[in-house]
């Protein structure tokens, strides 16, 4: 079973020493995989599962997972409840109102066995698919021809459509969030931001300051703040020739 080996290698495998025994803790895909593993390990007939024993082993395994801080998915707990339920059903004496000959009482394990068998079938099918994809990954088609380039666009499915819509919505939301974030900026905050810029350099081209503005409101705020900075004599503005660049210089 190549797939299983691979899954184990990829999973977080730990080999802690517990009670002197070497315990191999494998990470299972789900509760059905764990059950199949236990059945295989114990060499149990899948049609006649000793439910008490398997339930105990299943629960032991879960507590082991807990000990090593492996998150136990809720699916595993649901299965634990199912196992306990089956176990208790099997302990009940047969209903005396039903005559013994009818054999109407269904084996409480039946549904679980069916699910396990069904699951095993799909595991085998997955292996078959794995083999197929291995072969096909080694097959190549011709290189692009000039005529292919006439249509380099993407083919679309409904999933592409919803993905495109989601992209547009996310983009729109981001833009709105940015606008909102900047509109709440006060002149004091803007002042701090610009003053910080002047601590790094003594002169700044003010067209650069305008380019940094993230929205119209931000742009107006930048302009007003520069005027305020000039008024407070923090900076002075110079222009070395008519229509030339305006430079703000720290006083």
């Amino acid at each position, binding site marked *: 079973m190549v797939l299983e080996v691979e899954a184990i290698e990829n999973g977080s495998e730990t080999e802690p020493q517990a009670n002197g025994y070497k315990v191999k803790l494998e990470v299972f895909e789900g509760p059905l995989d764990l059950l199949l593993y236990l059945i295989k390990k114990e060499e149990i007939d899948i049609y006649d599962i000793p439910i008490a024993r398997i339930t105990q082993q299943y629960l032991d395994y879960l507590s082991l997972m807990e000990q090593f801080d492996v998150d136990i998915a809720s699916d595993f707990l649901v299965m634990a409840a199912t196992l306990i339920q089956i176990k208790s059903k099997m302990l009940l004496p047969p209903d005396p109102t039903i005559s013994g000959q009818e054999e109407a009482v269904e084996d409480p394990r039946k549904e679980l066995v069916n699910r396990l068998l069904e699951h095993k079938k*799909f595991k085998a099918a*997955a292996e*078959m698919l794995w083999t197929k994809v291995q072969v*096909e990954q080694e097959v190549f088609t011709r290189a692009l021809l000039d005529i292919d380039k006439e249509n380099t666009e993407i083919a679309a499915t409904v999933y592409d459509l919803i993905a495109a819509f989601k992209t547009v919505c996310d983009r729109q939301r981001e833009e709105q969030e940015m606008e909102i974030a900047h509109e709440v900026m006060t002149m004091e905050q803007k002042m701090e931001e610009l003053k910080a810029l002047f601590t790094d350099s003594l002169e700044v081209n003010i067209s650069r300051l305008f380019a940094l503005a993230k929205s119209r409101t931000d742009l107006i705020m930048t302009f007003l703040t520069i005027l305020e900075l000039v008024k407070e004599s923090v900076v002075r503005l110079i222009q070395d020739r008519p229509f030339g660049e305006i430079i703000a210089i720290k006083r």
Partner: protein
Amino acid sequence: MTKEELKPILEVLIFVSEEPIKLKHLYEILADEEPAEINLAVQELAQEFNSREGGLEMREIAGGWRISTRPQYHEYIRAYLKTKPSAKLSLASLETLAVIAYKQPVTIPEILEIRGVSSSSAIKTLLDRRLIVPKGRKECVGRPVMYGTSKEFLIQFGLKDLSELPSIEDFEELATT
């Protein structure tokens, strides 16, 4: 047109088509020819083409015909194109794909029932790799989205069509042993 005249034309069309070319499409291009005649010519052409035992082969895949390299030469091609094989699908993704391939159209809750474990992230991977597509909604409470396999699935797994998948009952024997 004779069958012998048809064959090289079909060969050219199979070669230039970016995707496996469907017979229906060939009928359309060669509208003056009998579909039955075209079918026969394609069959013979493929047989002849493949009998060369060259590096290339003509195959029916995803409902169409295409020319591709034989798998045994992949290492030389990779050495030349400097490509790496695409990332392998995880066990969880392959199992989910198997359930979808055999039970389609199928919903996420139904997949959960069979696998015994949530498959959302596997479904996302399969959608992103275009191996599955949404196929409408199931008419039941909550109207969940149903999924099925795509044409890309047939191509990536080298299948002519879905009927080429071995029947799920064939795996029964493996399951009981």
